[in-house]
């Protein structure tokens, strides 16, 4: 199980990693920018990507488009502070598999991750 965590906050990246470690995920890469995420994903197709939206440089939705270009079947879980329906619907239309709002609830994160893996 290969996981890529994309968020400009190292505190958030580490929190997600710790939450999913307890769910048995140990092969984890991290990226702090959309650009780094696309570079990493293009050389190693991860099973799941968690992706923030508000980041310096390339924003998460543009990054999502580029990941879907590389792999139309990519499983991308958006984890964002942007708590509005229009953004969530847009992300799903662009190919995201799910949308979680910050602050992160570890139980919701694990549940969303399990659903993605069963998909």
């Amino acid at each position, binding site marked *: 199980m290969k996981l890529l965590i994309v968020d*400009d*906050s*190292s*505190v*958030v990246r*580490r*929190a997600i990693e*710790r939450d999913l470690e307890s769910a048995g995920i140990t092969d984890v890469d991290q990226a702090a920018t959309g650009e780094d995420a696309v570079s990493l994903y293009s050389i190693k197709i991860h099973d799941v990507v968690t992706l923030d939206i*508000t*980041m*310096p440089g390339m924003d998460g939705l543009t990054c999502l488009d580029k990941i879907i270009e590389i792999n139309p079947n990519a499983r991308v879980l958006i984890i*964002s*502070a*942007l*708590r*509005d329906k*229009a*953004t969530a619907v847009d992300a799903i239309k662009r190919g995201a598999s799910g949308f979680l*709002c*910050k*602050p*992160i*609830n570890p139980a919701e994160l694990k549940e969303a991750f399990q659903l993605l893996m069963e998909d």
Partner: protein
Amino acid sequence: MNDQDIQVFITGFRRYFESLKTDFRVVIEPPYIKDLRDREIPFLDYTGIIAIDGKSHGVVCFTANGHILESILERLNEAPITRELICDLVGEIANTVSGNAREKFGREFLISVPIVTTNHDIVYPLPADCRNYVIPIVWQSERAYLFVCLS
């Protein structure tokens, strides 16, 4: 921005601290209005600033002392706690509360990435036509503030 609009920030602020799931209750004290250019504004050791554009213009700032931020990082099982992590956290809290406000204001409420400062004497260009709300919180006997300055 009016008294009803400010409620979404109070909700977001409370939501963040409640997500930490500690035995300590977060107390949100009554918000008040103050001019952010006023020297008496209580900017503390670390401040995360989010610039707002689109439907509103201005800033949302979260300011706190190191102790409260260290306590949150401990709660998140971070070790060792560094100044870099504290700066990251104060920006992330400002980002989370601001982003959550889209629940009320919608997609046209555009938020920037966080700018973090440790300067107590912050000078930031603010719209002249905004009401500046100060929302104090107390958590683990420590006080922190959210400033919402929006046109």
